[in-house]
């Protein structure tokens, strides 16, 4: 096994284990911490796929900023043990069934897709994910969507202030 393969398997196991830990942790703060571990592992995958900009964005925005937001949301809610809602057995059963069906659909799509058969992920090849190439495409070919996104950010700011501020 080459180093890339070892890294791939290590990161895959890390991603899956921490994602499962997000779901089965009783403490919501522990769930968020495991989610951060998941994001770090996925960033490692991005680096293996030569998508370095995506890896950095994932770390800075998701593991850094969005996770703080998640923690604040948890602290905004009154998560006492006493008022934890009890979910019935049927709810859990329905959740497992619907989640399993979604997994089955995704797996069958990936398995039968024409674009994906007999192809493996491009490890260590391709250079559109590198910051220089991506920036060049973004600022020449996709300049208008880039400017439109700033208007989106402006509306998000106004929305946050209007909702968060009383007067």
């Amino acid at each position, binding site marked *: 096994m080459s180093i*890339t393969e070892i890294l791939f398997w290590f990161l895959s196991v890390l991603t899956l284990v921490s994602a499962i830990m997000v779901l089965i942790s009783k403490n919501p703060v522990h769930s968020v911490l495991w989610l951060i571990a998941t994001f770090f592992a996925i960033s490692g995958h991005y*680096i*293996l796929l*030569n998508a*370095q*900009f995506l890896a*950095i*964005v994932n770390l*800075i*925005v998701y593991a*850094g*900023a*969005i996770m*703080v*937001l998640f923690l*604040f*949301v948890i*602290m*905004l*809610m*009154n*998560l*006492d043990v006493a008022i934890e809602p009890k979910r019935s057995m049927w709810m859990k059963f329905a959740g497992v069934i619907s989640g399993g069906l979604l997994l089955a659909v995704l797996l069958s799509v990936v398995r039968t897709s024409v674009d994906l058969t007999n192809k493996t992920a491009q*490890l*260590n090849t391709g*250079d559109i994910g*590198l*910051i*220089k190439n*991506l*920036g*060049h495409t*973004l*600022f*020449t070919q996709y*300049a208008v969507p*880039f*400017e439109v996104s*700033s*208007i989106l*950010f*402006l509306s*998000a*700011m*106004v929305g*946050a*202030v209007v909702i*968060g*501020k009383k007067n």
Partner: protein
Amino acid sequence: MQLINALLQANTTAVATATGTAADYFPIGIQLLFAIGFVAVMIGGSHLLGPKRRTADKLENFTSGIESHGTARQPMAIKYFLVAILFVLFDVEVIFFYPYAVNFRDLGWQGFGEVLLFVSFFLIGFIYIIKKGALIWED
């Protein structure tokens, strides 16, 4: 010795191809491992070596000498959330500067104009936030 060889090799490949492959991240990986290992060894070492005298008084939560009452699970003010969400927005803004900084010379005045427009939209938003007093902490 092997480690140094690997480091040097990673460096030469970076210079030779100048595209940046996953192999270039080997030094960063080493640094990350070292950072995690250092913190783990220090915390674990002080935990193992340090003296422990567990009395009821010492295990009590420290609340600056005031008697603690209630739980820590209090719902907190929305203004923390407002600051956090504004932080996320400006964080995403900064993200766009990285690809621009790398391509700064190639893009020239056209790219500068694009980024200036982008930043001016954010500046409008920032002025709006300041005017609305969203960052004023005291009610």
